[in-house]
Protein backbone atom coordinates (compact mmCIF):
# COMPACT_ATOMS: atom_id res chain seq x y z
CA UNK A 1 0.00 0.00 0.00
CA UNK A 2 1.14 3.45 -0.70
CA UNK A 3 -0.85 5.01 2.06
CA UNK A 4 1.00 5.86 5.24
CA UNK A 5 0.52 3.23 7.89
CA UNK A 6 -2.28 4.08 10.22
CA UNK A 7 -0.42 3.49 13.46
CA UNK A 8 3.35 4.08 13.20
CA UNK A 9 4.48 2.63 16.48
CA UNK A 10 2.94 0.62 19.22
CA UNK A 11 4.89 2.60 21.81
CA UNK A 12 2.90 5.67 20.96
CA UNK A 13 5.94 7.83 21.46
CA UNK A 14 5.96 8.78 17.81
CA UNK A 15 2.62 10.36 17.19
CA UNK A 16 0.96 9.47 13.97
CA UNK A 17 1.25 12.42 11.64
CA UNK A 18 -2.13 13.19 10.24
CA UNK A 19 -2.36 12.27 6.57
CA UNK A 20 -2.12 15.33 4.41
CA UNK A 21 -5.30 16.38 2.77
CA UNK A 22 -3.82 16.57 -0.68
CA UNK A 23 -1.95 14.01 -2.69
CA UNK A 24 1.40 14.85 -1.14
CA UNK A 25 1.53 11.48 0.56
CA UNK A 26 1.07 9.69 -2.72
CA UNK A 27 4.27 7.89 -3.61
CA UNK A 28 6.57 9.90 -5.77
CA UNK A 29 10.05 9.36 -7.06
CA UNK A 30 12.26 7.30 -4.82
CA UNK A 31 14.44 9.38 -2.49
CA UNK A 32 17.20 8.59 -0.02
CA UNK A 33 17.14 10.73 3.11
CA UNK A 34 20.27 10.86 5.25
CA UNK A 35 19.87 11.60 8.93
CA UNK A 36 22.42 12.69 11.50
CA UNK A 37 21.79 13.64 15.12
CA UNK A 38 23.59 13.67 18.46
CA UNK A 39 23.92 10.44 20.40
CA UNK A 40 20.68 9.27 21.89
CA UNK A 41 21.62 9.22 25.52
CA UNK A 42 18.72 11.47 26.35
CA UNK A 43 15.00 10.87 26.19
CA UNK A 44 14.27 13.84 24.00
CA UNK A 45 17.02 13.08 21.52
CA UNK A 46 16.01 9.44 21.50
CA UNK A 47 12.47 10.50 20.66
CA UNK A 48 13.86 12.62 17.83
CA UNK A 49 15.64 9.63 16.33
CA UNK A 50 12.63 7.39 16.72
CA UNK A 51 10.19 9.89 15.29
CA UNK A 52 12.42 10.43 12.28
CA UNK A 53 12.66 6.73 11.64
CA UNK A 54 8.94 6.19 12.13
CA UNK A 55 8.07 9.02 9.76
CA UNK A 56 10.37 7.64 7.11
CA UNK A 57 8.85 4.17 7.42
CA UNK A 58 5.48 5.57 6.46
CA UNK A 59 6.60 6.19 2.93
CA UNK A 60 7.41 3.47 0.49
CA UNK A 61 9.32 5.97 -1.61
CA UNK A 62 11.75 6.95 1.18
CA UNK A 63 14.95 5.14 1.97
CA UNK A 64 16.05 6.21 5.43
CA UNK A 65 19.81 6.33 5.97
CA UNK A 66 20.76 7.24 9.53
CA UNK A 67 24.43 7.49 10.54
CA UNK A 68 26.02 6.81 13.89
CA UNK A 69 24.80 9.43 16.31
CA UNK A 70 27.67 10.95 18.20
CA UNK A 71 28.37 13.76 20.61
CA UNK A 72 31.78 14.43 19.11
CA UNK A 73 31.65 17.23 16.56
CA UNK A 74 34.56 15.81 14.68
CA UNK A 75 32.80 12.48 14.27
CA UNK A 76 29.52 14.10 13.25
CA UNK A 77 31.34 16.02 10.53
CA UNK A 78 32.80 12.76 9.36
CA UNK A 79 29.36 11.17 9.43
CA UNK A 80 27.86 13.89 7.26
CA UNK A 81 30.84 13.63 4.92
CA UNK A 82 30.02 9.98 4.43
CA UNK A 83 26.39 10.82 3.64
CA UNK A 84 27.49 13.36 1.07
CA UNK A 85 29.80 10.79 -0.45
CA UNK A 86 26.88 8.35 -0.59
CA UNK A 87 24.98 10.97 -2.64
CA UNK A 88 21.74 10.96 -0.68
CA UNK A 89 18.85 13.01 -2.08
CA UNK A 90 18.26 15.04 1.05
CA UNK A 91 19.83 15.45 4.45
CA UNK A 92 18.18 16.01 7.81
CA UNK A 93 20.74 17.25 10.30
CA UNK A 94 20.33 17.96 13.96
CA UNK A 95 23.83 19.27 14.66
CA UNK A 96 25.52 19.02 18.03
CA UNK A 97 26.34 22.65 17.46
CA UNK A 98 24.99 24.58 14.48
CA UNK A 99 28.03 26.78 14.15
CA UNK A 100 30.46 23.92 14.12
CA UNK A 101 28.63 21.93 11.50
CA UNK A 102 27.89 24.93 9.34
CA UNK A 103 30.85 24.28 7.08
CA UNK A 104 29.92 20.71 6.30
CA UNK A 105 26.29 21.67 5.72
CA UNK A 106 27.53 24.24 3.24
CA UNK A 107 29.49 21.51 1.50
CA UNK A 108 26.38 19.36 1.29
CA UNK A 109 24.37 22.21 -0.17
CA UNK A 110 27.17 22.92 -2.61
CA UNK A 111 27.08 19.27 -3.63
CA UNK A 112 23.42 19.77 -4.55
CA UNK A 113 21.96 18.01 -1.55
CA UNK A 114 19.17 19.96 0.13
CA UNK A 115 19.66 20.16 3.88
CA UNK A 116 16.78 20.25 6.32
CA UNK A 117 18.19 21.79 9.46
CA UNK A 118 16.50 20.33 12.49
CA UNK A 119 16.31 22.42 15.65
CA UNK A 120 19.85 23.70 16.38
CA UNK A 121 20.33 26.26 13.69
CA UNK A 122 23.17 26.78 11.24
CA UNK A 123 24.28 30.42 11.37
CA UNK A 124 24.69 30.59 7.62
CA UNK A 125 21.44 30.57 5.66
CA UNK A 126 23.30 29.28 2.63
CA UNK A 127 23.97 26.12 4.58
CA UNK A 128 20.40 24.83 4.58
CA UNK A 129 17.25 24.76 2.53
CA UNK A 130 14.75 24.72 5.36
CA UNK A 131 14.94 25.02 9.08
CA UNK A 132 12.40 23.48 11.40
CA UNK A 133 12.79 23.59 15.14
CA UNK A 134 11.52 24.63 18.48
CA UNK A 135 11.43 28.05 19.97
CA UNK A 136 13.88 28.06 22.85
CA UNK A 137 13.45 31.71 23.65
CA UNK A 138 9.70 31.26 23.47
CA UNK A 139 9.94 28.30 25.81
CA UNK A 140 11.66 30.48 28.40
CA UNK A 141 9.07 33.15 27.86
CA UNK A 142 6.22 30.69 28.37
CA UNK A 143 7.75 29.43 31.60
CA UNK A 144 8.45 32.99 32.70
CA UNK A 145 4.89 34.06 32.14
CA UNK A 146 3.49 31.12 34.02
CA UNK A 147 5.76 31.73 36.99
CA UNK A 148 5.39 35.51 36.91
CA UNK A 149 1.64 35.52 36.61
CA UNK A 150 1.14 32.99 39.34
CA UNK A 151 3.42 34.78 41.80
CA UNK A 152 1.86 38.11 40.94
CA UNK A 153 -1.60 36.68 41.57
CA UNK A 154 -0.42 35.32 44.90
CA UNK A 155 0.99 38.73 45.70
CA UNK A 156 4.47 37.50 46.54
CA UNK A 157 7.03 40.27 46.86
CA UNK A 158 10.69 39.55 46.14
CA UNK A 159 10.08 35.92 45.28
CA UNK A 160 12.91 33.39 45.33
CA UNK A 161 12.95 32.00 41.80
CA UNK A 162 15.35 29.16 41.05
CA UNK A 163 16.29 27.96 37.59
CA UNK A 164 17.87 24.63 36.72
CA UNK A 165 19.34 24.80 33.26
CA UNK A 166 20.41 22.07 30.89
CA UNK A 167 23.89 21.84 29.38
CA UNK A 168 25.32 25.31 29.83
CA UNK A 169 27.46 25.36 26.72
CA UNK A 170 24.53 24.83 24.34
CA UNK A 171 23.17 27.99 22.72
CA UNK A 172 19.64 26.70 23.30
CA UNK A 173 20.19 26.83 27.05
CA UNK A 174 21.21 30.45 26.83
CA UNK A 175 18.16 31.26 24.72
CA UNK A 176 15.84 29.58 27.17
CA UNK A 177 17.34 31.44 30.10
CA UNK A 178 17.10 34.73 28.29
CA UNK A 179 13.42 34.22 27.45
CA UNK A 180 12.73 33.26 31.05
CA UNK A 181 14.49 36.31 32.44
CA UNK A 182 12.84 38.66 29.92
CA UNK A 183 9.37 37.37 30.70
CA UNK A 184 9.94 37.59 34.45
CA UNK A 185 11.13 41.17 34.03
CA UNK A 186 7.70 42.18 32.79
CA UNK A 187 6.42 41.25 36.25
CA UNK A 188 9.28 42.98 37.99
CA UNK A 189 10.86 39.69 39.04
CA UNK A 190 14.27 38.18 38.47
CA UNK A 191 15.96 34.82 38.85
CA UNK A 192 17.51 34.37 42.30
CA UNK A 193 19.84 31.47 41.50
CA UNK A 194 20.56 29.26 38.55
CA UNK A 195 22.71 26.18 38.07
CA UNK A 196 23.20 23.97 35.08
CA UNK A 197 22.80 20.19 34.91
CA UNK A 198 23.63 17.78 32.10
CA UNK A 199 20.17 16.71 30.90
CA UNK A 200 20.42 13.52 32.96
CA UNK A 201 18.33 12.34 35.88
CA UNK A 202 21.34 12.02 38.06
CA UNK A 203 22.83 15.46 37.47
CA UNK A 204 19.38 16.99 37.91
CA UNK A 205 19.14 15.23 41.24
CA UNK A 206 22.57 16.38 42.36
CA UNK A 207 22.14 20.01 41.39
CA UNK A 208 18.67 20.18 42.90
CA UNK A 209 19.78 18.59 46.17
CA UNK A 210 22.47 21.22 46.58
CA UNK A 211 20.22 24.10 45.48
CA UNK A 212 17.61 23.11 48.03
CA UNK A 213 20.28 23.39 50.69
CA UNK A 214 21.29 26.80 49.42
CA UNK A 215 17.75 28.18 49.54
CA UNK A 216 15.67 27.30 52.53
CA UNK A 217 12.59 28.93 51.10
CA UNK A 218 11.78 28.92 47.42
CA UNK A 219 8.76 30.35 45.65
CA UNK A 220 9.11 28.96 42.16
CA UNK A 221 11.44 26.76 40.18
CA UNK A 222 11.88 26.32 36.44
CA UNK A 223 13.64 23.22 35.25
CA UNK A 224 14.59 23.36 31.57
CA UNK A 225 14.29 19.69 30.87
CA UNK A 226 11.82 17.01 31.93
CA UNK A 227 14.43 14.26 31.57
CA UNK A 228 16.56 15.70 34.30
CA UNK A 229 13.34 16.74 35.99
CA UNK A 230 12.76 13.21 37.25
CA UNK A 231 15.90 13.58 39.33
CA UNK A 232 14.96 17.08 40.40
CA UNK A 233 11.60 15.85 41.66
CA UNK A 234 13.25 12.98 43.50
CA UNK A 235 15.53 15.43 45.29
CA UNK A 236 12.58 17.63 46.21
CA UNK A 237 10.66 14.67 47.59
CA UNK A 238 13.69 13.43 49.47
CA UNK A 239 14.09 16.82 51.11
CA UNK A 240 10.37 16.92 51.81
CA UNK A 241 10.00 20.38 50.33
CA UNK A 242 6.53 21.51 49.26
CA UNK A 243 6.51 25.29 49.69
CA UNK A 244 7.02 26.13 46.02
CA UNK A 245 5.74 25.20 42.59
CA UNK A 246 7.77 23.99 39.66
CA UNK A 247 7.55 24.31 35.90
CA UNK A 248 9.16 21.76 33.63
CA UNK A 249 10.38 21.87 30.05
CA UNK A 250 10.08 19.83 26.82
CA UNK A 251 6.90 17.96 27.71
CA UNK A 252 7.70 14.36 28.53
CA UNK A 253 4.82 11.97 29.11
CA UNK A 254 6.10 11.37 32.58
CA UNK A 255 5.97 15.06 33.47
CA UNK A 256 2.46 15.26 32.06
CA UNK A 257 1.30 12.34 34.15
CA UNK A 258 2.80 14.03 37.18
CA UNK A 259 0.90 17.22 36.35
CA UNK A 260 -2.27 15.27 35.74
CA UNK A 261 -2.19 13.40 39.01
CA UNK A 262 -1.67 16.61 40.98
CA UNK A 263 -0.22 16.70 44.48
CA UNK A 264 3.27 17.24 43.14
CA UNK A 265 5.18 20.53 43.04
CA UNK A 266 5.29 20.12 39.28
CA UNK A 267 2.36 22.20 38.09
CA UNK A 268 3.15 22.85 34.48
CA UNK A 269 5.58 22.19 31.70
CA UNK A 270 6.38 24.14 28.55
CA UNK A 271 6.69 22.11 25.38
CA UNK A 272 9.56 21.56 23.05
CA UNK A 273 8.24 18.73 21.03
CA UNK A 274 10.37 16.07 19.36
CA UNK A 275 7.60 15.64 16.82
CA UNK A 276 9.60 18.18 14.83
CA UNK A 277 11.73 15.28 13.64
CA UNK A 278 8.78 13.62 11.95
CA UNK A 279 7.98 16.86 10.23
CA UNK A 280 11.59 17.33 9.19
CA UNK A 281 11.60 13.98 7.40
CA UNK A 282 8.36 14.84 5.67
CA UNK A 283 9.78 18.17 4.58
CA UNK A 284 12.97 16.56 3.34
CA UNK A 285 10.90 14.17 1.23
CA UNK A 286 8.83 16.94 -0.23
CA UNK A 287 11.89 19.03 -1.02
CA UNK A 288 13.67 16.13 -2.63
CA UNK A 289 10.63 15.38 -4.73
CA UNK A 290 10.17 19.03 -5.56
CA UNK A 291 6.77 19.28 -3.96
CA UNK A 292 5.33 22.02 -1.80
CA UNK A 293 3.31 21.90 1.41
CA UNK A 294 -0.20 21.25 0.27
CA UNK A 295 -1.87 23.29 2.98
CA UNK A 296 0.00 26.35 1.83
CA UNK A 297 -0.40 28.27 -1.35
CA UNK A 298 3.32 28.26 -2.13
CA UNK A 299 4.68 25.74 -4.57
CA UNK A 300 7.73 25.11 -2.42
CA UNK A 301 8.38 24.19 1.19
CA UNK A 302 9.01 27.36 3.27
CA UNK A 303 12.48 28.32 4.39
CA UNK A 304 11.80 28.12 8.09
CA UNK A 305 9.22 26.72 10.44
CA UNK A 306 9.24 27.43 14.15
CA UNK A 307 7.20 25.31 16.52
CA UNK A 308 5.35 27.19 19.21
CA UNK A 309 6.12 26.39 22.83
CA UNK A 310 2.89 25.62 24.61
CA UNK A 311 2.20 25.58 28.30
CA UNK A 312 0.72 22.40 29.68
CA UNK A 313 -1.16 22.56 32.95
CA UNK A 314 -3.61 20.36 34.75
CA UNK A 315 -6.40 21.93 32.70
CA UNK A 316 -5.15 21.01 29.25
CA UNK A 317 -2.86 18.07 29.97
CA UNK A 318 -5.43 15.63 28.65
CA UNK A 319 -5.06 16.92 25.12
CA UNK A 320 -1.27 16.87 25.19
CA UNK A 321 -0.68 13.53 26.83
CA UNK A 322 -0.73 11.56 23.57
CA UNK A 323 2.06 13.76 22.23
CA UNK A 324 4.29 13.36 25.26
CA UNK A 325 7.49 11.40 24.78
CA UNK A 326 8.73 8.81 27.24
CA UNK A 327 11.85 10.29 28.75
Amino acid at each position, binding site marked *: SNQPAAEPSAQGSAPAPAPAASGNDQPGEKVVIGFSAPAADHGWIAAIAKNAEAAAKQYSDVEFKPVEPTNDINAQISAVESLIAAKVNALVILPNDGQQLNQIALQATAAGIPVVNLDRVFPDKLAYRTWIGGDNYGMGVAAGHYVGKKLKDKGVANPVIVEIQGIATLPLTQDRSKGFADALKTYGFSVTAKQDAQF*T*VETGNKVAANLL*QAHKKIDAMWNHDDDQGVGVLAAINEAGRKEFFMVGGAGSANAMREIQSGGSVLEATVTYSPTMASSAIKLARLIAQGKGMSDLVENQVPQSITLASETITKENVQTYLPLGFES
Partner: protein
Amino acid sequence: MNGVLSLTGRRFGEARHLGLVIALVLLAVVGLVTVPENFATASNLVSILSLAATIGVITVGMTFVIIGGGIDLSVGAIMALASVWATTLATQAFGPFIMAVCAILVGTGAGLVNGLLIAYGRMVPFIATLAMLVAARGLAQRMSDRKTQLIQQGNEAIVALSTTRVLGIPLLVYIFALVVAVGWIVLNRTTFGRRTYAVGGNPEAARLAGIDVRRHTMLLYALSGFCCGVAAILIMARTTTGSSTHGDLYELDAIAAVIIGGTLLTGGRGTIIGSILGLLIFTLITNLFILNGLNTSDQLVAKGLIIVVAVLLQRRNLKERAT
Protein backbone atom coordinates in the same frame (compact mmCIF):
# COMPACT_ATOMS: atom_id res chain seq x y z
CA MET B 1 66.94 2.79 65.73
CA ASN B 2 64.45 0.27 64.51
CA GLY B 3 61.94 1.56 66.97
CA VAL B 4 62.33 4.97 65.46
CA LEU B 5 61.81 3.56 62.02
CA SER B 6 58.56 1.83 62.77
CA LEU B 7 57.39 4.88 64.66
CA THR B 8 57.99 7.11 61.68
CA GLY B 9 56.20 4.47 59.70
CA ARG B 10 53.06 4.98 61.67
CA ARG B 11 53.37 8.74 61.82
CA PHE B 12 53.77 8.74 58.10
CA GLY B 13 50.36 7.13 57.62
CA GLU B 14 48.72 9.56 59.99
CA ALA B 15 50.37 12.53 58.38
CA ARG B 16 49.04 11.46 55.02
CA HIS B 17 45.49 11.56 56.24
CA LEU B 18 46.21 14.66 58.28
CA GLY B 19 46.79 16.60 55.06
CA LEU B 20 43.38 15.53 53.78
CA VAL B 21 41.75 16.33 57.07
CA ILE B 22 43.32 19.79 57.04
CA ALA B 23 42.01 20.36 53.53
CA LEU B 24 38.53 19.27 54.63
CA VAL B 25 38.66 21.54 57.66
CA LEU B 26 39.77 24.47 55.54
CA LEU B 27 36.89 23.87 53.16
CA ALA B 28 34.51 23.70 56.13
CA VAL B 29 35.87 26.99 57.44
CA VAL B 30 35.29 28.54 54.03
CA GLY B 31 31.73 27.24 54.21
CA LEU B 32 31.18 28.64 57.68
CA VAL B 33 32.49 32.04 56.68
CA THR B 34 30.77 32.43 53.31
CA VAL B 35 27.39 30.81 53.94
CA PRO B 36 27.11 30.57 57.72
CA GLU B 37 23.34 30.13 57.79
CA ASN B 38 23.21 27.29 55.25
CA PHE B 39 26.44 25.38 55.57
CA ALA B 40 26.59 24.03 59.08
CA THR B 41 23.01 22.85 59.20
CA ALA B 42 22.24 19.24 59.90
CA SER B 43 20.26 18.98 56.72
CA ASN B 44 23.14 20.23 54.61
CA LEU B 45 25.58 17.79 56.18
CA VAL B 46 23.13 14.96 55.60
CA SER B 47 22.69 16.16 52.05
CA ILE B 48 26.45 16.09 51.47
CA LEU B 49 26.66 12.54 52.79
CA SER B 50 23.70 11.41 50.70
CA LEU B 51 25.33 12.88 47.60
CA ALA B 52 28.61 11.18 48.44
CA ALA B 53 27.01 7.80 49.17
CA THR B 54 26.60 6.43 45.64
CA ILE B 55 30.03 7.26 44.39
CA GLY B 56 31.44 6.49 47.82
CA VAL B 57 30.39 2.87 47.57
CA ILE B 58 32.03 2.70 44.15
CA THR B 59 35.15 4.31 45.54
CA VAL B 60 35.53 1.52 48.08
CA GLY B 61 35.64 -1.06 45.30
CA MET B 62 37.94 1.13 43.24
CA THR B 63 40.35 1.39 46.16
CA PHE B 64 40.69 -2.39 46.20
CA VAL B 65 41.24 -2.56 42.47
CA ILE B 66 43.86 0.17 42.43
CA ILE B 67 45.74 -1.17 45.46
CA GLY B 68 45.70 -4.48 43.62
CA GLY B 69 47.54 -2.83 40.75
CA GLY B 70 44.61 -2.40 38.38
CA ILE B 71 42.13 0.21 37.31
CA ASP B 72 38.41 0.03 36.59
CA LEU B 73 37.01 2.47 34.06
CA SER B 74 33.71 0.66 33.80
CA VAL B 75 32.25 1.44 37.23
CA GLY B 76 29.80 4.11 36.10
CA ALA B 77 28.62 2.06 33.15
CA ILE B 78 28.20 -1.09 35.23
CA MET B 79 26.17 0.88 37.74
CA ALA B 80 23.98 2.17 34.92
CA LEU B 81 23.50 -1.32 33.52
CA ALA B 82 22.64 -2.72 36.93
CA SER B 83 20.14 0.08 37.55
CA VAL B 84 18.47 -0.50 34.19
CA TRP B 85 18.35 -4.25 34.58
CA ALA B 86 16.82 -3.94 38.02
CA THR B 87 14.13 -1.54 36.85
CA THR B 88 12.86 -3.30 33.74
CA LEU B 89 9.20 -4.08 34.08
CA ALA B 90 10.05 -7.76 34.09
CA THR B 91 12.32 -7.41 37.10
CA GLN B 92 10.08 -4.96 38.86
CA ALA B 93 7.31 -7.54 38.83
CA PHE B 94 9.27 -9.49 41.44
CA GLY B 95 9.33 -6.70 43.97
CA PRO B 96 11.99 -4.54 45.56
CA PHE B 97 14.04 -7.27 47.17
CA ILE B 98 14.60 -9.14 43.95
CA MET B 99 15.34 -5.85 42.22
CA ALA B 100 18.14 -5.19 44.70
CA VAL B 101 19.47 -8.71 44.29
CA CYS B 102 19.30 -8.32 40.55
CA ALA B 103 21.32 -5.09 40.64
CA ILE B 104 24.00 -6.73 42.74
CA LEU B 105 24.14 -9.83 40.58
CA VAL B 106 24.40 -7.84 37.37
CA GLY B 107 27.13 -5.65 38.87
CA THR B 108 29.11 -8.58 40.20
CA GLY B 109 28.67 -10.46 36.95
CA ALA B 110 29.96 -7.60 34.84
CA GLY B 111 32.86 -7.17 37.25
CA LEU B 112 33.60 -10.85 36.94
CA VAL B 113 33.77 -10.54 33.17
CA ASN B 114 36.28 -7.71 33.63
CA GLY B 115 38.23 -9.92 36.00
CA LEU B 116 38.25 -12.87 33.63
CA LEU B 117 39.42 -10.76 30.71
CA ILE B 118 42.19 -9.20 32.77
CA ALA B 119 43.34 -12.13 34.87
CA TYR B 120 42.94 -14.98 32.41
CA GLY B 121 42.67 -13.16 29.08
CA ARG B 122 45.66 -11.08 30.21
CA MET B 123 44.20 -7.89 28.84
CA VAL B 124 45.50 -4.60 30.15
CA PRO B 125 42.97 -3.43 32.78
CA PHE B 126 42.63 -0.03 31.14
CA ILE B 127 41.53 -1.53 27.84
CA ALA B 128 39.41 -4.34 29.22
CA THR B 129 37.41 -2.06 31.46
CA LEU B 130 37.18 0.58 28.75
CA ALA B 131 35.61 -2.04 26.50
CA MET B 132 33.27 -2.95 29.34
CA LEU B 133 32.39 0.73 29.78
CA VAL B 134 31.37 1.02 26.15
CA ALA B 135 29.57 -2.31 26.00
CA ALA B 136 27.73 -1.95 29.30
CA ARG B 137 26.42 1.48 28.38
CA GLY B 138 25.29 0.15 25.04
CA LEU B 139 23.58 -2.79 26.65
CA ALA B 140 21.92 -0.52 29.19
CA GLN B 141 20.60 1.63 26.33
CA ARG B 142 19.28 -1.41 24.53
CA MET B 143 17.56 -2.80 27.57
CA SER B 144 15.98 0.49 28.50
CA ASP B 145 15.26 1.46 24.93
CA ARG B 146 17.01 4.69 25.98
CA LYS B 147 14.22 5.59 28.31
CA THR B 148 14.42 6.49 31.92
CA GLN B 149 12.76 3.68 33.83
CA LEU B 150 10.68 4.78 36.77
CA ILE B 151 10.34 2.64 39.84
CA GLN B 152 6.76 1.43 39.79
CA GLN B 153 4.19 1.57 42.49
CA GLY B 154 4.61 -1.27 44.92
CA ASN B 155 8.37 -1.04 44.77
CA GLU B 156 8.72 2.16 46.76
CA ALA B 157 10.73 0.22 49.32
CA ILE B 158 13.73 0.96 47.13
CA VAL B 159 13.04 4.68 47.14
CA ALA B 160 12.48 4.48 50.88
CA LEU B 161 16.22 3.92 51.28
CA SER B 162 16.57 7.54 50.36
CA THR B 163 13.46 9.01 51.99
CA THR B 164 13.29 7.04 55.25
CA ARG B 165 15.40 8.55 57.97
CA VAL B 166 16.70 7.05 61.16
CA LEU B 167 17.96 9.62 63.64
CA GLY B 168 17.50 12.17 60.89
CA ILE B 169 19.81 10.36 58.51
CA PRO B 170 18.58 8.59 55.36
CA LEU B 171 19.06 4.84 55.23
CA LEU B 172 21.36 5.07 52.24
CA VAL B 173 23.93 6.93 54.30
CA TYR B 174 23.95 3.98 56.68
CA ILE B 175 24.47 1.64 53.77
CA PHE B 176 27.37 3.79 52.61
CA ALA B 177 28.88 3.69 56.11
CA LEU B 178 28.42 -0.06 56.25
CA VAL B 179 30.17 -0.60 52.94
CA VAL B 180 33.07 1.57 54.07
CA ALA B 181 33.34 -0.28 57.36
CA VAL B 182 33.22 -3.70 55.76
CA GLY B 183 35.69 -2.55 53.12
CA TRP B 184 38.07 -1.35 55.79
CA ILE B 185 37.82 -4.60 57.71
CA VAL B 186 38.34 -6.73 54.62
CA LEU B 187 41.32 -4.67 53.51
CA ASN B 188 43.02 -4.51 56.88
CA ARG B 189 41.98 -7.56 58.78
CA THR B 190 41.60 -10.40 56.30
CA THR B 191 44.15 -12.28 54.28
CA PHE B 192 42.24 -11.33 51.15
CA GLY B 193 42.84 -7.66 51.92
CA ARG B 194 46.46 -8.00 52.87
CA ARG B 195 47.19 -10.12 49.85
CA THR B 196 45.69 -7.39 47.71
CA TYR B 197 48.66 -5.25 48.66
CA ALA B 198 51.02 -8.02 47.66
CA VAL B 199 49.29 -8.62 44.33
CA GLY B 200 49.43 -4.92 43.52
CA GLY B 201 52.82 -4.09 45.00
CA ASN B 202 54.83 -6.96 43.63
CA PRO B 203 52.84 -9.54 41.69
CA GLU B 204 55.92 -11.63 40.99
CA ALA B 205 56.73 -11.82 44.69
CA ALA B 206 53.12 -12.67 45.42
CA ARG B 207 53.23 -15.48 42.89
CA LEU B 208 56.49 -16.82 44.31
CA ALA B 209 54.93 -16.74 47.76
CA GLY B 210 52.25 -19.08 46.50
CA ILE B 211 49.39 -16.64 46.04
CA ASP B 212 47.10 -17.35 43.10
CA VAL B 213 47.57 -13.90 41.60
CA ARG B 214 45.17 -14.43 38.72
CA ARG B 215 42.33 -15.64 40.84
CA HIS B 216 42.88 -12.81 43.26
CA THR B 217 42.91 -10.25 40.47
CA MET B 218 39.68 -11.64 39.09
CA LEU B 219 38.04 -11.40 42.50
CA LEU B 220 39.10 -7.77 42.86
CA TYR B 221 37.18 -6.78 39.75
CA ALA B 222 34.21 -8.84 40.83
CA LEU B 223 34.33 -6.98 44.13
CA SER B 224 34.38 -3.67 42.30
CA GLY B 225 31.40 -4.84 40.24
CA PHE B 226 29.61 -5.83 43.41
CA CYS B 227 30.11 -2.31 44.77
CA CYS B 228 28.69 -0.93 41.52
CA GLY B 229 25.64 -3.11 42.06
CA VAL B 230 25.14 -1.70 45.54
CA ALA B 231 25.68 1.79 44.16
CA ALA B 232 22.99 1.07 41.57
CA ILE B 233 20.52 0.42 44.36
CA LEU B 234 21.45 3.72 45.97
CA ILE B 235 21.13 5.72 42.75
CA MET B 236 17.78 4.05 42.08
CA ALA B 237 16.69 5.10 45.55
CA ARG B 238 17.86 8.67 45.05
CA THR B 239 16.56 9.28 41.56
CA THR B 240 13.59 6.87 41.67
CA THR B 241 14.78 5.61 38.29
CA GLY B 242 17.03 3.27 36.45
CA SER B 243 18.78 4.83 33.47
CA SER B 244 21.55 4.20 31.01
CA THR B 245 22.82 7.70 31.72
CA HIS B 246 23.45 7.08 35.39
CA GLY B 247 27.02 7.26 36.62
CA ASP B 248 28.44 9.19 33.71
CA LEU B 249 32.13 9.88 34.37
CA TYR B 250 31.96 8.31 37.81
CA GLU B 251 35.11 6.45 36.91
CA LEU B 252 37.11 9.66 36.81
CA ASP B 253 35.71 10.92 40.09
CA ALA B 254 36.24 7.63 41.87
CA ILE B 255 39.78 7.23 40.60
CA ALA B 256 40.57 10.83 41.50
CA ALA B 257 39.23 10.32 45.02
CA VAL B 258 41.31 7.18 45.47
CA ILE B 259 44.47 8.86 44.24
CA ILE B 260 44.01 12.06 46.18
CA GLY B 261 43.51 9.76 49.16
CA GLY B 262 47.09 8.59 48.78
CA THR B 263 46.72 5.34 46.87
CA LEU B 264 49.32 4.94 44.17
CA LEU B 265 48.14 4.15 40.64
CA THR B 266 51.01 1.67 40.50
CA GLY B 267 49.37 -0.37 43.23
CA GLY B 268 50.50 -1.89 46.49
CA ARG B 269 49.67 1.03 48.72
CA GLY B 270 46.66 2.94 49.88
CA THR B 271 43.84 3.14 52.37
CA ILE B 272 40.05 3.18 52.33
CA ILE B 273 39.93 6.09 54.75
CA GLY B 274 42.11 8.19 52.46
CA SER B 275 39.86 7.49 49.48
CA ILE B 276 36.73 8.44 51.41
CA LEU B 277 38.34 11.64 52.66
CA GLY B 278 39.36 12.43 49.10
CA LEU B 279 35.81 11.86 47.94
CA LEU B 280 34.36 14.05 50.69
CA ILE B 281 36.68 16.86 49.61
CA PHE B 282 35.26 16.70 46.09
CA THR B 283 31.67 16.54 47.34
CA LEU B 284 32.24 19.42 49.73
CA ILE B 285 33.74 21.56 46.98
CA THR B 286 30.64 21.16 44.80
CA ASN B 287 28.34 21.83 47.73
CA LEU B 288 30.20 25.01 48.67
CA PHE B 289 30.12 26.31 45.12
CA ILE B 290 26.41 25.85 44.76
CA LEU B 291 25.68 27.30 48.18
CA ASN B 292 27.69 30.32 47.11
CA GLY B 293 25.87 30.52 43.80
CA LEU B 294 29.00 30.29 41.65
CA ASN B 295 28.42 29.51 38.00
CA THR B 296 29.79 26.30 36.57
CA SER B 297 32.63 27.83 34.61
CA ASP B 298 33.98 29.56 37.67
CA GLN B 299 33.36 26.38 39.63
CA LEU B 300 35.55 24.46 37.24
CA VAL B 301 38.41 26.92 37.44
CA ALA B 302 38.16 27.08 41.22
CA LYS B 303 37.95 23.30 41.49
CA GLY B 304 41.15 22.90 39.52
CA LEU B 305 42.95 25.38 41.73
CA ILE B 306 41.62 23.84 44.93
CA ILE B 307 42.76 20.38 43.91
CA VAL B 308 46.25 21.69 43.23
CA VAL B 309 46.40 23.62 46.49
CA ALA B 310 45.03 20.70 48.51
CA VAL B 311 47.58 18.32 47.08
CA LEU B 312 50.50 20.69 47.45
CA LEU B 313 49.42 21.39 51.02
CA GLN B 314 49.28 17.71 51.73
CA ARG B 315 52.72 17.21 50.22
CA ARG B 316 54.17 20.06 52.25
CA ASN B 317 52.76 18.54 55.36
CA LEU B 318 54.28 15.21 54.50
CA LYS B 319 57.66 16.72 53.84
CA GLU B 320 57.75 18.51 57.14
CA ARG B 321 57.11 15.24 58.87
CA ALA B 322 59.68 13.46 56.83
CA THR B 323 62.58 15.77 57.60
